[in-house]
C-alpha cells in the first residue's frame, strides 16, 4: 500500500506543481487583482521579486518585514524575467481583496505542497535503498503529514475565494449584490448554527470510528469472521476481495 502510494505520488505531486503553474498564468490573465493580492504586490512593474514572507498592510499599501528574492516573481508568474505584473494600486481601494488573507493562505498551501514533495522524494529515495518499510522515523513522518492535504485544500480554497473579493463573478457581480434580498443575518446565523452542530456531532463520531478501526489493525479485521444475520456490513470489509465476506 505504501509502495503503491509512493509511486502514485511520484507522478501526481509534480503534476500538481505543473497545474498550479498553469493556474497562476490563468489567474494573471483573468483575475489579475487576485494574483496581486496573493503576491502582495502593490506597484505594477517588471522584473518583480518573489516575496517569500511579509506582513501586508492594506491601509498603507505596503509590506512590512518583506523577505524577497529578486526577479523570481516575474520569472515564475510570466515565465519571463522581464514579465510585467500588475500591482494592487491599479484598482480603486474598494475593488481590492483583503491582501493578508489571500497572501498567507496561498503560502500555507504552497508550503504544504513543498513539504509533500519533500516527503515523496525522501520516501522514494529510501525505497531505492530498500529501507522504506523498516524506518520508524519515516513512517511516523507520514502519519504526521497525512492530514496536511486537507489543510492545503482549505487554504487553497480560502485563497481563491478571498482573492476574488469583492466580486462573486470577477468584474461583473459584486458579492454584496449577489445576496438573496429576503435573507436576513439571523436566518444565516440560524442555518449556520445548524450546520456547526451537525458537524460537531459527525466529525468526532467519524474520527472515533476510524481510530477504532486503525487501533485494531488489519489482522483483527480479518479475524472478525463472517458478517452474520443481516447485520449491516463493516465498511472496510465491504471492499471486494477481503476474505471475511459471505457475499453472493
Amino acid at each position: 500500500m505504501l509502495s503503491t502510494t509512493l509511486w502514485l505520488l511520484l507522478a501526481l505531486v509534480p503534476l500538481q506543481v505543473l497545474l498550479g503553474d498553469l493556474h497562476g498564468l490563468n489567474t494573471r490573465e483573468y483575475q489579475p487583482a487576485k494574483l496581486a493580492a496573493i503576491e502582495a504586490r502593490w506597484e505594477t512593474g517588471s522584473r518583480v521579486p518573489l516575496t517569500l514572507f511579509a506582513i501586508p498592510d492594506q491601509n498603507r499599501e505596503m509590506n512590512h518585514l518583506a523577505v524577497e528574492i529578486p526577479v523570481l516573481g516575474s520569472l515564475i508568474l510570466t515565465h519571463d524575467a522581464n514579465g510585467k505584473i500588475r500591482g494592487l494600486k491599479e484598482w480603486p481601494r474598494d475593488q481590492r481583496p483583503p491582501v493578508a488573507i489571500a497572501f498567507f493562505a496561498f503560502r500555507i498551501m504552497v508550503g504544504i505542497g513543498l513539504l509533500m514533495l519533500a516527503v515523496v522524494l525522501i520516501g522514494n529515495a529510501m525505497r531505492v535503498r530498500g529501507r522504506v518499510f523498516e524506518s520508524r522515523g519515516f513512517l511516523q513522518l507520514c502519519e504526521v503529514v497525512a492530514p496536511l492535504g486537507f489543510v492545503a485544500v482549505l487554504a487553497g480554497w480560502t485563497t481563491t475565494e478571498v482573492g476574488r473579493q469583492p466580486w462573486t463573478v470577477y468584474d461583473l457581480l459584486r458579492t454584496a449584490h449577489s445576496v438573496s434580498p429576503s435573507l436576513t443575518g439571523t436566518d444565516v446565523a440560524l442555518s449556520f448554527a445548524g450546520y456547526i452542530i451537525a458537524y460537531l456531532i459527525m466529525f468526532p463520531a467519524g474520527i472515533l470510528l476510524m481510530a477504532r478501526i486503525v487501533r485494531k489493525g488489519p489482522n483483527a479485521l480479518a479475524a472478525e469472521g463472517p458478517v452474520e444475520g443481516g447485520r449491516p456490513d463493516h465498511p472496510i470489509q465491504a471492499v471486494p476481495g477481503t476474505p471475511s465476506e459471505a457475499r453472493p
Partner: protein
Amino acid sequence: MNTLDLVPIWTLILGLGVFFYVLLDGFDLGVGILFGFAPDTASRNLIMNSIAPIWDGNETWLVLGTVGLLAAFPLAFAIVIPAVYFPIAIMLLALVFRGVAFEFRYRDAERKTFWDHSFSYGSTIATFAQGVILGAFIQGFKVDGRHFAGSSFDCFTPFSLLTGIALVFGYALLGAGWLILKTEGKLQGFARKAGRIAFIAVLVAMLTVSIWTPLADPAIASRWLAWPHPLYLAPVPSVTALFAILEWRALGGRHGEAVPFVAALGLFLMSYLGIAISLWPFIVPRTYTLWQAASAEGTQAFLLIGTLTLLPVILVYTGWSYWVFRGKVRHDFGYH
C-alpha cells in the same frame, strides 16, 4: 434563423428528474420512516439492508433537479430557493444524519443506538421538509420584480405543514410497498399493516388538498371546474380512484407482492400530474411562466448536450444496481 424552443425539453427533463427523485428517494426515505416502528432488531437490520445498496444513487436525482433548475430556469431558482431556505437547510441536515447512519450503525447493530434514531428521525424530518417545500410552492411566493420579497419563514403555513405531514405518510406508503416486495413473513406483515395506516392518511390528505387548493386559489378552481375542462380532466381523478382501490386490495394481500409498490407509484404519478395541471404553465406559481424564467437559448442548448449524454448513463447504472440486488433480502448475507 428560427431555432428550436428548448423550454419544453428542459421542462420534461426537470419534471422527470424531480418525479424520479420523489419516487426513488421517496421509497427509501419511507423505509427509513418505517424503520423507527420496526418490531425488533432483526427486522431493523433487514429493513436497512433492503435499501443499503441503492439509496445513495437515488439522491442523484435531487442534484439533477436542483442544478437543472439553476441552469435552465435561473429566475425560478433565484426566487424559489430563497423562499424555502429553511426547509431546504433542514432537509439537507436531516439527510446528513440519515446518510451516515448507514455507515456508523454497523458497529453496534444489536442495540437501538443514537444512529438508529438518527436514521428514522433523519428520514422523517427530511421528508417533512420536502412536503413543506411542496406546499409552499403550490401556494406561491411573494415576488417583487426578479426576487422573492417575503421572509424566510413565510413558507411555514397551515397548508404547507399539512403537505409536510401528508408526504411523510406518502413516502411511508411507498416504503411499505418496497418492504412488501423485498421481505417475507413477519416483517412483510408489519409492512402491510403500516402500509394500510399510511394509505388511509394519504387518502385523507389527497382529498383535503384537492378541496383546499381550488377554494384558496380561483385560478386552480377554474382550471379544473370551468367547462369544458372537467370533460377531459375527468380521467385524472378517476384513474387516481382506481389506483387507490387497487392499493387497498393489494395491501390486504389480494394481488401480487409487487402491486402495493406499483399502485403507490401510480398514486404519486397522479398527484404529480394533478399539481402540474393546476400550476401549468408557471414555474414560479402565478408570477413567471417556464418561458419567462428560462435561461438563454444558447445556455440551454449547451447544457442539453451534457445532460443528454449523462442521463442514459445514469439510467443504465441505476437500472443495473436494481437488477443486481433484485429479489428478497435475506438474513444470511447482505451488502453494505
